[in-house]
């Protein structure tokens, strides 16, 4: 049992890699779609709304299966350059996770943008600051601060979501735990250790977000 601990730890590295890559791409997707959501053009607006509606309204597991097993069935796709990426389970998982977390992030950021007091933007305008600069220097920093608690939650949800990568053959923490169980037949012990590692990671994320919240304050 103790012998399996290093194996679980090295699998944790893959879990963390999946998480950070997904969050990195997800943040960009989220920011882009949050901006699109606030567009006055109804087509762009509806498109962004549709994206977040679909990805928040379907289970992550289904999304992974559609991207991994579903797209793999389309023969035409296999002859295109896209197959280089979609052939790898790793990238399929990252794409699914990034699209999923992107949808949630876009909603978190949109609501943060919309709660910014109009007075702050008007103050910028009265000082003659151009709109672009107002957006980058006033709206985005405030929105990020506003959304920290909710985004921290999203990181934790995503961390646990990465366990679904094991369903598309990736040997992440859950995948390796299952593999060890298949040779030792001791599900309780192994899953408790794996669960403990997840809990520790959640603990770290939680405290890091708390630290950021304290440091950058919540006063706007």
């Amino acid at each position, binding site marked *: 049992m103790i012998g399996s601990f290093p194996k679980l730890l090295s699998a944790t590295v893959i879990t963390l890699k999946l998480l950070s890559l997904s969050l990195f791409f997800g943040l960009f997707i989220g920011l882009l779609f949050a901006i699109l959501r606030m567009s006055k053009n109804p087509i762009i607006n509806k498109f962004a709304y549709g994206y977040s509606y679909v990805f928040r309204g379907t289970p992550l597991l289904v999304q992974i299966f559609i991207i991994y*097993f579903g797209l*793999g069935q389309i023969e035409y796709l*296999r002859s295109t350059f896209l197959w280089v990426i979609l052939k790898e*389970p790793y990238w399929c998982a990252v794409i699914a996770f990034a699209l999923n977390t992107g949808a949630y992030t876009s909603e978190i950021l949109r609501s943060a943008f919309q709660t910014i007091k109009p007075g702050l933007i008007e103050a910028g305008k009265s000082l003659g600051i151009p709109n672009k600069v107002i957006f980058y220097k006033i709206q985005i920093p405030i929105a990020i601060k506003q959304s920290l608690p909710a985004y921290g939650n999203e990181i934790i949800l995503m961390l646990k979501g990465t366990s679904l990568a094991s369903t598309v*053959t990736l040997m992440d923490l859950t995948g390796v735990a*299952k*593999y060890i169980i298949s*040779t030792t*037949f001791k599900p309780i012990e192994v899953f408790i250790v794996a669960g403990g590692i997840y809990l520790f990671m959640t603990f770290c994320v939680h405290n890091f977000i708390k630290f950021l919240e304290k440091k950058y304050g919540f006063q706007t």
Partner: protein
Amino acid sequence: MNKFKTLGLGILISFFLTISSNADSIRIGTEGAYPPWNSKDASGNLIGFEVELANELCKIMKAECTIVEQDWDGMIPALLMRKFDAIMAGMSITAERQKTITFSQGYADEVASLAVMKGSNLEGMDTPEGINLSLGGSDVKKALKTLTGVLAGKTVCVQTATIHQNFLDSGDVGSVNVRTYKTQDEVNLDLASGRCDAALAAAVAFTDYADKSGKPVVLVGPTFSGGAFGNGVGVGIRQGGDDAIGKRDAKLLKDFNKAIDKARKQGIISKLAIKHFGFDASM
């Protein structure tokens, strides 16, 4: 409030009643995703060789049986946790599994084989038709050497926690890139999509898939038996003990062995094997 309490108590009692009413019947666990051994029809009913064989064996034992579905990767843990009393899921009798559970005598045996998509450069390997790893010898050594060379750097897909995975992990064919899946269905899907260079499973699992899907899946290389591939497929049962449940398990093992003897003599196993495999896989 009292109404809720009564309702809660009622639900609790009926829950325990359903459990205890099953206490005397034999619960048999199967996967339902490994045709033609065991699978499900379109409406979700369990079908296949082992489902029919289980019913025949229960008839011989004059026991009431329930067949329970269980994911393959949790099969042995579920048996140990008494979710059911016996496994009939195409599970080969291997020394590794016998450390944890016990097996009845084998009721059927079937060789394993590599499969690729038609047109793969793995086709036309120069190997004997079949090798038995238990026998060893120069033929086996030569075949394994050929396989090691051909499979180097290739991705070979298998279902998790199977004899096929054990064989690839054993290093007999060098260090291939092993990819594991929860079910054989998923292995087949990724073989067809081209994510796997080859797949390893029971030969019938591939021929069955090729027949049903119409995909050009072909068997290559030698068929495998013996060694890591075990000694046939048997009924998996908990190891007996001195307490009441342990004694019941020990008796169950005896009953299954007797029933299998009888079914073999009456030709039931052969008949079912021919029906589902297309050849006599009984043993």
